[in-house]
């Protein structure tokens, strides 16, 4: 089976420092990959390189496009990459303010991707927006409210709806539950897990929260100082960590 995303020797340096180095992996359709590591380990740098928001210094990122099969995202032209960015890809930011238009209503936020690819029928856009707000458990009567009037958890759910409306095949998530309290986190994780399974999405989830990857991810990649130090099935890595750093990471989780 052709992997949906294949990364080969991806390297990004910030001057003399290493952002991430020699990262290689393959992500298959329907698979969720978790990337864990402490702050500064290169998780977000890697994610931003994959999503085309940062330009890596070396390596290849092959995405299995709908029309032309696997293509290197890094050598694509700007329009093609941006087109992918608003159709087949989705990016869920840690801070919903980065991913939402705060001065545009919830319905407008969800409809933006549809209008970006040419939807020009107000009624259709609105009913799609209502459908997706329902999917992320936002009541219909909030469709014309601005995200600023939403709670943190609702903003995050709105961001997810806004991203999924175009039927993406690959979702990048950067700390999707960061900054939320635990009960809201739990509901959000439940929701994401349901959506990922139902839509058969592939996803790359970057987080420092091991509980999040335990719930969401099929496979796990552990990063430290820009390098991948351990990979494997999530349960395998978390229950039987091999690298010393992973052992430290797993044992550092507070038990209640």
């Amino acid at each position, binding site marked *: 089976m052709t992997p949906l995303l294949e990364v080969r020797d991806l390297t990004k340096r910030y001057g003399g420092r290493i952002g991430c180095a020699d990262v290689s992996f393959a992500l298959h359709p329907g698979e969720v990959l978790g990337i864990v590591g402490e702050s500064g380990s290169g998780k977000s740098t890697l994610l931003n390189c994959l999503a085309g928001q940062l330009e890596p210094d070396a390596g290849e990122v092959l995405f299995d496009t709908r029309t032309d099969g696997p293509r290197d995202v890094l050598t694509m032209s700007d329009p093609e990459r941006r087109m992918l960015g608003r159709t087949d890809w989705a990016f869920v930011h840690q801070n919903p303010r980065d991913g939402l238009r705060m001065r545009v*209503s919830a319905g407008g936020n969800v409809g933006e991707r549809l209008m970006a690819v040419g939807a020009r029928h*107000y009624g259709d856009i*609105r009913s799609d927006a209502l459908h997706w707000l329902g999917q992320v458990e936002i009541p219909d009567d909030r469709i014309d409210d601005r995200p600023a009037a939403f709670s943190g958890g609702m903003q995050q759910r709105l961001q997810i709806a806004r991203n999924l409306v175009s039927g993406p095949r690959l979702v990048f998530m950067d700390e999707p539950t960061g900054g939320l309290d635990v009960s809201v986190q739990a509901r959000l994780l439940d929701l994401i897990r349901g959506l990922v399974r139902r839509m058969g999405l592939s996803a790359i989830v970057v987080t420092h929260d091991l509980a999040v990857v335990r719930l969401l991810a099929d496979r796990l990649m552990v990063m430290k100082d820009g390098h991948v130090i351990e990979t494997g099935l999530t349960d395998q890595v978390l229950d039987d960590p091999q690298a010393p750093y992973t052992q430290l990471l797993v044992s550092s989780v507070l038990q209640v």
Partner: protein
Amino acid sequence: MNTSDYNFAYLDEQTKRMIRRAILKGVAVPGYQVPFASREMPMPYGWGTGGVQVSAACLTPEDTMKVIDQGADDTTNAVSIRKFFEKTANVAVTERTEEATVIQTRHRIPETLLAEDQILVYQVPIPEPLRFLEPRETETRKMHALEEYGLMHVKLYEDIAQHGEIATAYAYPVTVSDRYVMDPSPIPKFDNPKLESAAIQLFGAGREQRIYAVPPYTKVVSLDFEDYPFDPSKAPHACALCGADHTYLDEVITDDAGGRMFVCSDTDYCAQRRAEQQGTAA
């Protein structure tokens, strides 16, 4: 004052060449905002410094100039710019639309249909139609380059969601020649259909240092939704002076007791209609 104290039309010839190059590029790429080195003019920004520079670059000694502000020939902005060119270029001026060869306008297109030998110069405060949606200039330029205009419809969507209709009444965004989305300057949307004109239309934004153009007979389409089509609305009245029911109207408050009247915003058009009516009545 002797006109020889100034170079013809105030600006020096090199500057005019620079502006003409920008205009030519603008005409070649309809709706594209061409950067130009806007000069300091002897009037404040917001008073039409962009339009004045474009007019100065277009004027020849044989031209007849007309200046309107919100449709009127006799408001401060129009009077002072007209005087400016009378003084610095010594060109003939007129208030009659059909006699003018260069018309500088702020916020209106004349009601009288323009002809092929006329130039309409717009004063533009903010040339970037995406400005209030996307504050970064680097990003808006990229969006223009890649024709990513979905955001413009998000604005219209918001209008309908909040007001039940597209409430944008002026500076209504248009697509020029099936390519660039353009801000037609703050003309009422009533005037949008007149953007497809026989005259050449030039847009100058002095503070923002941009020039753009719509060549004659260029296709100009106002953005809308399939189920909420573009509607060039106007006040549902007839002009109180000339009786016209097909012109754009100003609402004039006449007393403190709620009295008001609606009159043509295009003063020249209204005056000509009244003169004709008096002629036929006499």
